[in-house]
């Protein structure tokens, strides 16, 4: 099958000049009718050229300033993301190291943890029977019934948080 023709350019020129089909040289018209390559050109090229003309009538493209601005914003966002990537990686490594160190030290720290737990249990055992007495003393002084054990626990938990906020506000 032939893929090109020596008269291809003549056909293209006639179409581009607007001579095809009515004002075309009869000899070229006969050739186009007989040649598969040129017939395809005569079918396809005017249709695409019309479509191109129609495309120019479509809504205008966005303003260059808008496209530029969006590109700037996006480039800045990407730069920020790229800058944050190493920080996130370092944080992940730090957390991994902390976990590894904790696991590595666990056998050595375990007796101390057990000791601290036993101490806390002893303190609990010592404090619980006396809690009722302390509570009655507070009731006697303030005239209010205060459940002393939950109050003491809540104070111990909240104190560092309140201290943190007090210091950071300063």
């Amino acid at each position: 099958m032939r893929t090109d023709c020596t008269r291809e350019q003549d056909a293209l020129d006639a179409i581009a000049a607007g001579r095809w089909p009515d004002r075309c040289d009869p000899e070229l018209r006969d050739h186009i009718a007989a040649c598969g390559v040129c017939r395809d050109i005569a079918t396809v090229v005017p249709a695409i050229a019309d479509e191109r003309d129609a495309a120019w009538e479509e809504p205008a493209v966005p303003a260059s300033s808008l496209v530029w601005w969006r590109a700037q914003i996006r480039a800045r966002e990407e730069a920020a993301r790229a800058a944050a990537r190493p920080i996130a990686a370092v944080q992940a490594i730090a957390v991994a190291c902390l976990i590894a160190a904790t696991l590595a030290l666990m056998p050595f720290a375990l007796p101390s943890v057990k000791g601290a737990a036993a101490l806390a249990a002893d303190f609990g055992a010592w404090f619980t029977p006396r809690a009722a007495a302390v509570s009655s003393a507070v009731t006697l002084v303030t005239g209010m019934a205060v459940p002393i054990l939950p109050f003491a626990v809540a104070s111990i938990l909240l104190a560092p948080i309140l201290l943190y906020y007090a210091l950071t506000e300063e």
Partner: protein
Amino acid sequence: MRNLTLADIEQLRAETSQSDVALEMDEEAFRAFYDRTARILRAYLSRVTGDSHLADDLLQETYYRFLRARSDYESEAHRRNSLFRIASNLVRDHHRRRRITPVVSAAEHEGSLADRPAAVQTERGADLRRAMTRLRPRDRELLWLAYAQGSSHREIAESLGLKTGSIKLLLFRARRRLASLLRGNGHAN
């Protein structure tokens, strides 16, 4: 994205320019290049994708990637061909993604082509758009670059990342397919 007025854009531009991010072109040069190429590129994207909304998205993306690309352009033609190459790659990526997760059916796709002003919809235009949707994306790109933009074989090759020597044959095949589709729609010539 919300509609922006020109005053908004100017204000945002002023804010942005205070801390410009490095792009591969200054704003003045970009605006001149954009004004020379945007309409042609949008027409190309719109006809190759068959979807004017997608064409608008790809237009923005194409210019963004163009601005971020670190290239030394020998000439205006080289710069322009690079722009079209980025656009063609984006279109190809889009078609590849759509093949994996088809979200738009062929009928919807043709429907989106019809969402345009009635004045533009000549019968021949409608036939051509319908026929173009049945071509492979590369065939559409080849035909549009060759016959709507009048690009040379070398320019087409640069824009599509193909060998110059293969353009003639590829163009012949694409033209043949489109011609037979159009003749099937009653195009005598």
